[in-house]
């Protein structure tokens, strides 16, 4: 079997289910692949590890790859989309008076210091006619956001769609109900988590890469159809996780993978227009020169099965 090192952009969890499904359900083995999973600590770190050849292929926010390509020209290329929507959202509690994105005006909102959500915040506020000056923003450790919301220290928080079930659980413990406002509903249309690979891997082992992408895609489809089994696969491989929790976050995550955009464009597809729109948003949000990168140069769609 061919060895492949797979790079996560964060710690294992329900949102990373497909790669565990791939191994645990035998899709990788069937494709003649021997996959090792490398834990990650953020998208930028994952990009660096791919660029330096520590890993072959992996998952990271495409915005991070865009920034990295624009500033450092890293030898990493996107091959497939995984989340075709941004995962960012406002969370609030029922009764805090936040029902839509417009309602955050004048409220206290907490976010974690280094999440990619922060760069998109001005854009989503702009979509609803607000600016950052209209909200009181505090930055605190991600672990503190839930407690801050539940204890009433803030009116709302910025977090990802992948955590709906967890925040719901926290709210239940104090007898409250959660309100989630995805930014995609407020007009922020973009790709986020994507499969990216090091250029040398793609150039030297195109066949392995192609087989891997295919097996991965199969795993995503399996996860969509059998979330409970997929969750069990994760729990099998990561004893610190229990299947119930994993299933909750996997179900939250599937919304970003399998939705109306997928229906329209197909699973894993990186459409040039949406890609260009994503880059425009990223460039605007991070203050990068929009002409510094042609997003088409950083994708290679030839590895996605069925497109060629």
């Amino acid at each position, binding site marked *: 079997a061919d060895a492949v090192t797979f790079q996560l952009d964060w710690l294992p969890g329900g949102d990373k289910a497909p790669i565990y499904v791939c191994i645990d359900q035998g899709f990788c083995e069937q494709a003649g692949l021997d996959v090792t999973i490398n834990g990650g600590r953020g998208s930028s770190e994952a990009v*660096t590890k791919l660029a330096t050849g520590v890993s072959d292929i992996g998952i990271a926010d495409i915005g991070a790859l865009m920034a990295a390509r624009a500033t450092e020209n890293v030898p990493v290329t996107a091959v497939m989309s995984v989340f075709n929507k941004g995962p960012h959202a406002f969370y609030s509690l029922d009764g805090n008076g936040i029902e839509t994105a417009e309602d955050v005006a004048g409220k206290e909102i907490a976010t974690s210091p280094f999440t990619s959500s922060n760069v998109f915040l001005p854009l989503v506020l702009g979509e609803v006619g607000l600016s950052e000056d209209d909200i009181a923003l505090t930055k605190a450790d991600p672990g503190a956001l839930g407690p801050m919301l539940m204890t009433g220290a803030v009116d709302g928080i910025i977090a990802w769609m992948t955590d709906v079930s967890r925040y719901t659980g926290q709210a239940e413990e104090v007898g409250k109900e959660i309100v989630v406002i995805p930014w995609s509903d407020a007009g922020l249309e973009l790709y986020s988590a994507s499969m990216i690979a090091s250029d040398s891997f793609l150039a030297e082992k195109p066949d392995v890469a192609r087989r891997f992408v295919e097996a991965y895609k199969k795993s995503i489809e399996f996860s969509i159809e059998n979330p409970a089994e997929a969750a069990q696969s994760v729990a099998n491989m990561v004893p*610190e996780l229990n299947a119930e929790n994993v299933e909750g976050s996997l179900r939250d995550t599937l919304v970003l993978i399998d939705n109306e955009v997928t229906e329209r464009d197909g699973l894993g597809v990186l459409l040039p227009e949406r890609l260009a729109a994503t880059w425009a948003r990223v460039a605007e949000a991070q203050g990068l020169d929009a002409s510094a990168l042609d997003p088409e140069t950083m994708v290679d769609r030839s590895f996605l099965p069925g497109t060629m």
Partner: protein
Amino acid sequence: MSTRNAIRHAATAPAVLPVATFIGLLILWELACRLFAIPSYVLPSPSRIMGGFGAVDAARWFAHVWSTFRVAMMGFLLSIVISLPIAIALARSEVFSRAVYPILVVIQSTPVVAIAPIIIVVMGAGDLPRVVITCLITFFPLVVSTTTGLLATPPELIELSRSLRAPVWREITQIRLPYAVPYIFSALKISVTLSVIGAVVAEFVAAEKGLGYFIQFSTSMFQIQQAWSGLVVLVLLSLSLFQAVNLIQRVFFPWSIARQSR
């Protein structure tokens, strides 16, 4: 016989009081959690934390503890091995000291997270980068304290050594180092707890197991009780290592422990 007695005495006598304090604090904590109905994702009560231990089985716990312990110890020992010669050189040579001290401060004050990518790229993903990170976090107190200790030797004893025309390294091993022992142990106590912190930080940056990884992982998965149970184990590990250093000092360097004078 006498050494064994010393070990037994040193090991048992001081255990009662801290244990009592701990039990008292645990009870207070449990009561506070119940009385003020503190949500468990802010601060779980001890009884709920106990539940967190069931999250993974004993073998897995052992693997986490062993991984952290191994990295902490290797980093700690490496930093001892590195610090001693550096401290000796710093104490011996004013020039070396001026040239090298600032570099040590630079290394000490560089946040590990900022240079983690290089460390990992250069050293791969095995134990090595973690041991190096631990060592980077641990070595500075050892260097500073040992240097201070080496220089604090009474001048009369240095004159004695000089008058005997002993080789310099014997002046260091037979006079300066014994004199520096209280300083060195004071630094070892600091460094041994830092070595656990260092291993944890290293696991935050790059690891798939270990108590730091377990805690961070559990936190990011919102498994707060599980995270706290990891924290409890971590703290116990740290305490044991600290007490081990204490014990070593009591048994092998009893003269270096200043007695209470009243």
